[in-house]
């Protein structure tokens, strides 16, 4: 149930300075890799989803910017005949919180890597992963964990079995809770129950290093998912040799957060002991085609508000400020 009491934190001197420094450092990193900043308007007039902060501008219902990726996609699809390859952004988004500890106003820095449809996306995915791997160092995080997932590992078997709507949602919720027994309960009586439960157990078997991919060999959908597994395997082989010493790489096969949005590899950055992910992203190839543009895209967003909270509650996780 959405929390109705808005929480708008004021940033006092230390946090405000940290926010300014982090924003500058992250935008500098992105700029050095060819990303150019776009700043979509704070007020949006598109179809307004649930959870946005809405108000009337005269007779028009408008909302404060709730998501940079959506706002940028609208701007690019409307105004650009060909996509800029690399876009960055920084600023605040406003959403009603689902959890009571979340703020309404959230500061973010992020990037989008956009290509015409049909181009190979492997190098773009690796580029984003490499950038995300550099971020703990930029933020002064002493150690971090990068979770690598793939939306297709969950989506394809459900689609292959003709599972859509409420039943598919129930399976996804069960996987999100990492609860194979809930998957079994949700599919009780369905002809594909045994296969899909076995697949869920394979997805949830491990949360560890590269060997986790091998768990999928026991899945009834191992063959269907061969191309996606190979894609992850290639990514791991490219990323592991350049892994910074303070970063651990984990394969998270059951990552279903944002499954309705992501279509390919997903990336999530954690710090040991953090209650929420600090950055998240992945490939979302349906976004631009839905806006009438034959482009594919991937990106990630660093959640600076969560990092500021973490710096307050767990300063031991960060290098001391210079």
């Amino acid at each position: 149930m959405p929390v109705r009491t808005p929480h708008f934190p004021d940033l006092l001197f230390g946090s405000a300075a940290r926010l300014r420094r982090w924003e500058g450092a992250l935008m500098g990193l992105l700029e050095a890799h060819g990303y150019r900043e776009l700043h979509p308007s704070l007020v949006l007039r598109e179809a307004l989803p649930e959870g946005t902060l809405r108000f009337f501008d005269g007779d028009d219902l408008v909302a404060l910017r709730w998501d940079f990726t959506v706002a940028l996609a609208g701007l690019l699809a409307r105004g650009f005949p060909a996509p800029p390859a690399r876009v960055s952004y920084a600023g605040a988004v406003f959403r009603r919180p689902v959890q009571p500890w979340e703020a309404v106003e959230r500061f973010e820095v992020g990037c989008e890597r956009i290509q015409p449809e049909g181009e190979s996306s492997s190098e773009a995915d690796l580029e984003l992963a490499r950038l995300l791997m550099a971020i703990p160092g930029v933020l002064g995080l002493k150690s971090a964990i990068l979770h690598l997932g793939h939306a297709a590992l969950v989506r394809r078997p459900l689609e292959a079995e003709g599972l859509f709507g409420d039943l598919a949602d129930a399976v996804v919720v069960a996987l999100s809770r990492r609860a194979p027994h809930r998957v079994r309960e949700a599919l009780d009586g369905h002809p594909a129950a045994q296969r899909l439960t076995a697949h869920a157990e394979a997805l949830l078997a491990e949360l560890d290093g590269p060997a986790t991919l091998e768990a999928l060999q026991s899945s009834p959908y191992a063959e269907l998912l061969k191309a996606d597994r190979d894609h992850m395997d290639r990514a791991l082989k490219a990323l592991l040799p350049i892994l910074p010493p303070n970063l651990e790489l984990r394969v998270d096969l059951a990552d279903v957060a944002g499954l309705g949005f992501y279509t390919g590899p997903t990336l999530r950055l954690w710090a040991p002991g953090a209650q929420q992910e600090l950055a998240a992203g992945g490939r979302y190839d349906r976004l631009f085609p839905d806006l009438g543009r034959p482009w594919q895209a991937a990106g990630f967003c660093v959640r600076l508000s969560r990092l500021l909270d973490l710096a307050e509650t767990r300063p031991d996780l960060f290098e001391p400020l210079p």
Partner: protein
Amino acid sequence: MTHQTLLIAFPKGRLGDELVPKLVGTPLALDANALKSRVLRIPTATPGVAALLLKGADLPRYVAAGVAQLGIVGSDTLDEMDMDLLELADLGFGACRLSLCAQTGVTLDHLRAKPHLRLATKFPKATEAWLTREGLTAELVPLSSSAELAPLLGLADAIVDLVQTGGTLKAHGLVETLVLGRSSARLVAARGAYLSEPKRLRPLAELLIAAFRATP
């Protein structure tokens, strides 16, 4: 207590009464002296791991917020609250039914035929889901305890409540009219803690699963 201390949230009440004896002799056995006192944070036999004793309805909130890293709670409570946490295992104990119960002689057809059905419950979400499936409407009377009294005193036509042995129902002249669902104890984990520190939490989770599944 530092952030290095791992906290496991255990429920007070019916589930708690069942689970505390199951931990005796395990590395997570609760300190007997602390249990006799009124403190709600209890040391375990493993240094650096403590237990919190919480009301079932509050427990998911502590785990979802990451205050406690692991917890044990009934699936009925989880389904009602829908908090963002991980549910690592069905521990199998504390099994009970979520049932529609009415006074002896009142059938499901009687209840369905009522133009203004009143249902007293601690489980409004599960009750609403059943009403939607059945295409029925009803006035929900929210209660937090002793729902069995509601039909007797005319506060409601029937109740939706947890039934384990049926003894309390029988004592109040009520019978189970329909089983809406089943509940059992679940091992839950804080999403952040589990995903960011699986090597720290998994051994404890496995210990709890082994302790509860091994005992009848």
